């Protein structure tokens, strides 16, 4: 599993979680990946930390003593904190998720979650440009011998033009934008299909399978790697 996460840049992470087992598990797991983790179990203490120090990412549980995670985040945002924040909560209702995202969170992950899902989402959040900054927009995405032209809506592998359906195009674009980083099934459902729910049918797998067939036509190496229990990753340097 470590291999899945080795390419994530080291980040300074604030973790607010009152359940000791979960806090220890997450701290240990994130530290194993090379991140520096500051763990707090109380909302007020976490707020003081956030305002006094700089973090690359905030991981916040909602129901914690002192200040609940969402209120803490709102206060931090009002005080000017711009660090990306992901809420981890057992509160799974639609209203809860809406309240979390409207309250300033960038992502909302429902407990229990797979650790790989959390790290994949952290990776995606960490690379998100600051609000209003679109300077990183690239009209041309190039990974290994795959080239995607977002203006002409064309994809080439080597000198071969690949005909992709719109959803397959979006799927590949999302993978290319996250090169060498795992993207999970739920992230793909969320970002590519805008499905805020988990279908029983393997629609991600079937689309991915078609995308692979089209990309690998002619027996080339498969640039997309399946990561068991975590999702997929497009590799910059082959396998």
């Amino acid at each position, binding site marked *: 599993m470590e291999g899945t996460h080795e390419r994530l840049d080291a980040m300074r992470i604030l973790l607010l979680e009152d359940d000791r087992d979960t806090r220890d598990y997450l701290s240990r797991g994130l530290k194993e990946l090379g991140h520096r983790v500051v763990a707090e179990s109380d909302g007020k203490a976490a707020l003081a930390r956030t305002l006094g120090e700089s973090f690359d990412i905030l991981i916040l549980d909602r129901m914690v003593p002192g200040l609940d995670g969402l209120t803490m985040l709102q206060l931090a945002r009002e005080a000017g904190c711009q660090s990306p924040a992901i809420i981890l909560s057992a509160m799974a209702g639609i209203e809860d998720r809406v309240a979390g995202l409207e309250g300033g969170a960038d992502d909302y992950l429902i407990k*229990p979650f797979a650790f790989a899902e959390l790290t994949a989402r952290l990776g995606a959040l960490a690379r998100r440009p600051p609000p209003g900054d679109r300077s990183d927009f690239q009209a041309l995405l190039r990974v290994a011998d795959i080239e995607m032209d977002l203006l002409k809506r064309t994809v080439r592998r080597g000198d071969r033009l690949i005909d992709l359906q719109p959803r397959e195009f979006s799927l590949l674009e999302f993978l290319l934008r996250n090169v060498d980083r795992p993207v999970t099934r739920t992230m793909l459902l969320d970002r590519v*299909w805008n499905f805020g729910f988990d279908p029983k049918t393997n629609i991600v797998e079937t*689309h991915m399978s078609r995308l692979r067939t089209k990309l690998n036509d002619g027996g080339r190496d498969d640039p997309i790697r399946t990561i068991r229990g975590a999702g997929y990753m497009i590799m910059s340097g082959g396998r």
Partner: protein
Amino acid sequence: MILLPRTIKGLSILSAAVSGLVILILGAAAILISHHEIEAQMDHRIEREMDALLDFHASNGAAQLAQVVRGRDGAATGGTGYLADTGSDGRMMLYALADATGRRIAGRLIPDMPPDGWSEFLPIRHPDGSKGEAQALSRRLPDGGQLVIAADRSALHRADDRILFVVLMGLGVILLTGTLSTIAFGRLVRRRLVLISGTAQGIIEGDYARRVPVDGSGSEFDRISAILNQMLGRIEELMSSLRQVSSDLAHDMRTPLGRIRQDMERLARDTTDLAAGQAVEQAIVDIDALLDLFAGLLGVSEVRGFAARKRFVSLPLAEIVGDVTDAYRPAFDDDGRILSADLQPVAIRGDAQLLKRAIANLLENVLAHAGNGAGASVSLRHDAGQAILTVADDGKGVPTKDLETIFERLVRLDPSRSKGGHGLGLSMVRAIVHAHHGRIRAESSTPGLRFLIQFPIDHQPFTGEG
């Protein structure tokens, strides 16, 4: 059992009809009684007059009587006219006298001599020549002559007419005021009932904050509204505590399960025993399934609570349906099935995520339960203010008796319950459709099963967040 109308309108009409009937009966009785009374009075006067004239005849003889009769029957003398002989009560008396041979010797206003005794409707002539009728008493005189005394009935007819007029006027006034007041009463009652039923409808649709307006008049309606509001307040409290319990339960269940899952994840990562690893991974799958079931149950309740409506915006339904069918088409293709879509653009107010979930559930229902090779066709069209979404398959269908029950929570028609799923998919679909003010019905198509969904169209689409 007597069938009485139950509506306010029916009761109002019945009450006006009963009042009218009572007035008619009372009026008829008044006419009859007064008619009889006047007739009796007239008979009494005739009898007294007859007695007086018979006495006069006995004392003074027929010639003298003829004089008197001529004098009283003014027209016979060409004198002051018959009005001179009206009685003290204003009613006119007429006379006729014949001798023993039947020859008329006095009184010309009675054309034909009646038989002895009372005549109810004796034809007479008025001095002005017009015809009339009178009630009359005819008596034989001891000398064989005949004396007739009659009272003109026109006064009686006038009295009858006047009473009838008064009764009809009364009836008209009562019917008019009765109708107006029942209309006003009906409106008042209906207005209050509409407020109460509107509130109840709002509550049924999940708006638990709705209350019946109270106008402070202290009327019966105000009192019942206040009691209803107390009841609604109590219901809202109960619903709110139920939601709180669900939320707490979700939290309290997810936290330890989350911990177990973390331990399992760690075990799966650390173990070198292949069999143990597989067992642990299966345990993770089972935990996820349990959480999934729980989330599904809470999700259905949440959608049924209609809180989502607060976020409803105008949506292009065809695009949403198209997105979902596109997402599922490869899954159909891979099984050698066909998924076709024929979508007309139409806007409804709603929540895109919920609608996507509903359509996804219907397509998954086809994939899971319609049988091998069954395809599906999705169509969207608008008709008479409604967006009509149809999801039909050509699979094995559902027995007619189950067409309603498939929407119940945790219902699975497969008795072995061997196929995946919790039987929550279609109850979620129905909850979502109802939250969107829509209706859903399942029907058998030949072959297969068809879901017909109607949503009200949004006629001011895409004008921004609502």
